[in-house]
């Protein structure tokens, strides 16, 4: 399975539709402090089903919707699309290209889609079962996680093992 592209709109600081294509083996993401790099990582966690608002650095889920600036009003909805190529047939589906998406409205309504067909979160997590991909995957690493492993905070080492074993 190969990542093809990520599309973000109305999610955190991405007011406008933004697309990132993943053509290469190793892609760098750079930019000044506060420009939105970790927000891109949050978008990927979110579309994979992350429910913990603390992991998303937000007090409540509504805070992931673009909240406006003095020149732009807040968005009504946050949307993220993540597209994969099922090139090693790792995903239990006959589709060659799979796009998962998540949509969250300010009134609290929430939707998940698989190739543009509304589905439930468990359809998405079921699709990625055994691939190592999930919102709390050991494959999405930042320094806070490094510290948790070193302190073994909340039995984090145990949990990591159980995920991959």
């Amino acid at each position, binding site marked *: 399975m190969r990542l093809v592209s990520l599309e973000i709109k109305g999610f955190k*600081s991405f007011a406008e539709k933004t697309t990132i294509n993943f053509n290469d*083996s190793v892609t*760098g993401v750079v930019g000044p402090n506060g420009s939105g790099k970790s927000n*891109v*990582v949050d978008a990927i966690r979110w579309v994979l089903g992350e429910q913990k608002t603390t992991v998303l650095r937000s007090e409540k889920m509504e805070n992931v919707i673009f909240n406006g600036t003095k020149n732009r009003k807040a968005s009504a909805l946050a949307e993220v699309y993540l597209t994969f190529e099922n090139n090693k047939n790792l995903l239990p589906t006959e589709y060659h290209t799979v796009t998962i998406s998540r949509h969250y409205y300010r009134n609290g309504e929430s939707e998940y889609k698989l190739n543009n067909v509304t589905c439930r979160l468990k359809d998405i997590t079921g699709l990625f079962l055994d691939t190592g991909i999930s919102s709390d995957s050991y494959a*999405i690493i*930042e320094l806070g996680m490094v510290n948790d492993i*070193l302190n073994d905070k909340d039995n984090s080492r145990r949990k990591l093992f159980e995920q991959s*074993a």
Partner: protein
Amino acid sequence: AKTQFLDAFMKVKENFQNVFRSLFTADDTCDLVLLDPENPLESDIDIIAKPKGKRPQTINQLSGGEKTLTAISLLFALYLLKPAPFCILDEVDAPLDDANIHKYNDIIKQFAKDSQFILVTHNKQTMSSVDSIYGVTMQEQGVSKVVPVNFSSLN
């Protein structure tokens, strides 16, 4: 379930020792220990790491960069057990010195033969090691925008 866990644990331990030795040196040692081997499904897991002839009593005595490399070795050890199709690392290279950043990027290039890697970074060495770069900017206050970047234009 117990056998399955112990089986995976032994493989992760071996991966950990291999990755640790490529991030540190071939003479360095480390170990993963089940504190309660009779009870593997419940037991706490201890990490022992001894870089370059040092004898730290616990990993807490290690330096910031040494701790980061040790944790990365463990995360990569788990990754090798069941490689995810992609792996994202957000500024994990921040505590590392130049020589260690080089080793970090080299081992990622190895793993990238089987998976895609996304590295968020402020580090110039890391930037020169990746295949392509996306720059994230906020030209309009508070609004993020992404553009493909040519590394030579960053210098």
